[in-house]
């Protein structure tokens, strides 16, 4: 069901919509003021839990629960690290918030810092997003001048400051522990967990890492009340609450970002929001939320494990007609990820698509773990060889082995992020791969573009 919202997007496209004046005209900073002047830290975390905000960065972990992991008493300072590295192929949402509504992220940081016991927030923005960084710094300066940041925000004796930190152009720094290493001035190599960031994060201190959209929606949730915010969602009963940004890109007529209540389906996103498939073609496949989420075929159905499963009411439904949620997409054998859908139309080649993605993972692997470093390159080389008509059936089968040997054998989830889509493409488009092996199709006939 399409239920349009405009909590984050109401300032999009407005003249100076990114300014503090425009933000306050729409009721901005009311939530932060109330939180700091009227609520205790415990009340903030409880309210955050009620909002059922699932992390918007890809893993979908409940934000309030994550906040509650922060130690109540610590001799060390605590930090908030906001992940705005936005590098997952197919993901183009956080950038719109930073460019067009940066104060929502700043206000969210204030509430989050107070809730987790931190006095400093680092917003990690990938370096390429120069306009985003400028808008965030501009918003921080405005908030400091108003006294919303600094020693006594809203008159409260609780210092809060925010710093924008930049990376150097690497996908891996979107992984939370790689992000922390990069923030400390090191190579962005993921760390072994445990210890988790809530115990030992940035600079060896307790740290909460939240995606930028997650933080930016917090003021809305507190302004509405956590429970009421959660109820916006059609999946409120399975603790997937509120509204979020949905993206649609690839082979659709109107690629864009929209803000909707959780509960919209893929069919609605593609055909109503996205205006339908390019050239009114049939669907070849859908990547639901960034390139690390395995593709779905348009005729797949969802299978619930048993009648007791909360997924049972969706059992047997076409995946295009299931509300997009963290748990529903998991039940469909993929992941919701970043909620930005990449659409592939019939006529484009899935083998070329896999080659393109494997080239990405090969380039972006940090190189720490052998299965990922060697595996991603091996996957890319082998798919390229098959496309060039030089691959054998044995090599096609070997791709499964390579991917399976990455799964579970690496420090961070980047390994799975490479192997899962690889296995998805291999399983779902096997016949296309075989055509190249048998010489029935060549790279020269293949294209990713359709008209």
């Amino acid at each position, binding site marked *: 069901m399409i239920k349009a919202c405009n909590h984050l997007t109401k300032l999009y496209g407005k003249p100076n919509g990114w300014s503090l004046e425009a933000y306050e005209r729409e009721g901005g900073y009311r939530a932060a003021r109330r939180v700091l002047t009227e609520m205790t830290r415990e009340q903030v975390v409880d309210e955050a839990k009620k909002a059922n905000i699932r992390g918007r960065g890809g893993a979908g972990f409940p934000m309030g629960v994550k906040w509650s992991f922060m130690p109540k008493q610590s001799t060390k*300072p605590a930090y908030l690290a906001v992940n705005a590295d*936005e*590098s*997952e*192929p*197919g*993901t*183009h949402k*956080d*950038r719109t918030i930073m460019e067009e509504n940066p104060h929502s992220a700043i206000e969210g940081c204030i509430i989050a810092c107070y809730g987790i016991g931190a006095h400093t927030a680092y917003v990690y923005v*990938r*370096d*390429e*997003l*120069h*306009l985003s960084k400028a808008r965030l710094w501009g918003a921080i300066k405005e908030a400091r001048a108003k006294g919303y940041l600094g020693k006594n925000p809203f008159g409260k004796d609780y210092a809060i400051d925010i*710093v924008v*930190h*930049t*990376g*150097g*152009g*690497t*996908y891996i720094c979107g992984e939370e522990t790689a992000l922390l290493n*990069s*923030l*400390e*001035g*090191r*190579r*962005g*190599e993921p760390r072994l967990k445990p210890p988790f960031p809530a115990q030992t994060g940035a*600079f060896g201190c307790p740290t909460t890492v939240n995606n930028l959209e997650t933080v930016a929606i917090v003021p809305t949730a507190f302004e509405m009340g956590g429970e009421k915010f959660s109820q916006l969602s059609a999946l409120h009963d399975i603790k997937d609450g509120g509204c979020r940004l949905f*993206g*649609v*890109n*690839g*082979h659709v007529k109107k*690629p*864009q*970002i929209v803000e909707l209540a959780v509960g919209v389906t893929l069919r609605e996103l593609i055909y109503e929001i996205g205006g339908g498939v390019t050239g009114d073609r049939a669907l070849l496949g859908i*990547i639901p939320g960034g*390139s690390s989420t395995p593709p779905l075929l348009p005729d797949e159905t969802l299978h619930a494990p048993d009648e007791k499963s909360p997924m049972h009411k969706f059992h047997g439904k076409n995946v295009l007609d299931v509300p997009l949620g963290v748990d529903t997409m998991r039940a469909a054998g993929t992941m919701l990820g970043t909620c*930005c859908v*990449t659409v*592939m139309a019939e006529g*484009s080649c899935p083998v070329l*698509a896999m080659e*393109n*993605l494997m080239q*990405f993972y090969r*380039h*972006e692997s*940090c190189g720490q773990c052998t299965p990922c470093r060697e595996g991603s390159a091996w996957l890319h080389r082998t798919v390229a060889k098959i496309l060039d008509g030089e691959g054998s059936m044995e090599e096609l089968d070997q791709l499964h082995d390579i991917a399976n040997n990455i799964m579970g054998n690496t420090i961070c989830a980047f390994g799975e992020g490479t192997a899962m889509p690889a296995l998805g493409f291999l399983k779902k488009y096997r016949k296309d791969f075989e055509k190249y092996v048998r010489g029935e199709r060549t790279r020269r006939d293949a294209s*990713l*573009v359709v008209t």
Partner: protein
Amino acid sequence: MPFALSADRERELNEILTRYPTKMAATIPALHLLQDQEGWISEEMMIWLAHRLDVSPAHIKGVVTFYTLFNQKPAGKHQVWVCRTLPCALRGAGDVITHCEKKLGIHVGDTTKDGKVTLRTAECLASCGTAPMMQVDEEYHENLTFERIDEILEKLQRD
């Protein structure tokens, strides 16, 4: 002449150092400052920064070689990055890259003979909804057409 930061960048570096509990944390923002001044990061600059931040030159070199955006050799006056990853590729990034190569008379990874433009491909630049796209220095150009690309590149060549 030994390497030195300009006075205004030196002030900025001092300000950056106040943001973090450690000096090492300033490594990446400082490298951006250095590259902003010189266009690339030389061994001499790495050693200079290592002394400035009280870390080893090996640490700085490790960081420089890890991150894509640091040039380890001099590059063109302008940097053109064309996104090549799947969502852009589905909307014609492949043709955009070929078109740029033809227009500039160079291959991806090369710099034009006059030293004005370095052409590179980028991995996803978070602009999938406005594909195909390219980044020129600090600016994004989205929903590209061949006409628009010609305008952008001709302006760079004239500069």
